[in-house]
């Protein structure tokens, strides 16, 4: 059994300050101030995969979440 993090963190979007407008050449007219649910602490656990008829087994390591918190939102490749 591995643990993930899921939750509802606060986010908002509003008109950008003038300094942001100028710095972005007037392309970023919206500012998003947000936090997202993240894994703040994790650990590795070993999982034993048993192969058919019990002749072989293989140990793999997989991460599991130990703690979650609302923190920086990140782009994901998925």
């Amino acid at each position, binding site marked *: 059994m*591995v643990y*993930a*993090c*899921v*939750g*509802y*963190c*606060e*986010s*908002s*979007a*509003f*008109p*950008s*300050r*003038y300094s*942001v*407008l100028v710095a*972005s050449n*007037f*392309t*970023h*007219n*919206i*500012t*998003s*101030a*947000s*936090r*997202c*649910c*993240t*894994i703040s602490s*994790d650990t590795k656990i070993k999982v034993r995969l048993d192969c058919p008829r019990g002749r072989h087994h293989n140990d*793999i390591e*997989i*991460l*599991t*979440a130990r703690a*979650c918190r609302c*923190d*920086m*939102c*990140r*782009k*994901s*490749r*998925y």
Partner: protein
Amino acid sequence: VTTLRTFRGCAVREFSFVAQKPGCRSLRIHTEACWGRCQTWEKPVLEPPYVQRHHRVCTYSRTRHLTARLPGCRPNVSPLYPYPLALQCDCDVCSTQDTECETF
């Protein structure tokens, strides 16, 4: 009863701010912006990058672009101040194409 403390989702919400620009007097503008709590998650996966994430934020999905006229601008300074009005908000990826994405 849903209060702001327990609200889940993403909604249009009244927003007022002071438009400030060098060379003009400032002006308080009342508009509509976005606020809420979107479901976000991170889960471990076996392959790189080992964490799969779903990070969506409450942001504008339909926008009207408005322009305010600031008072008391110097002769060489345009009084025009562009700002967005949210017509609809949704949970979506923060696009750095048109949005300043910040953590609060």
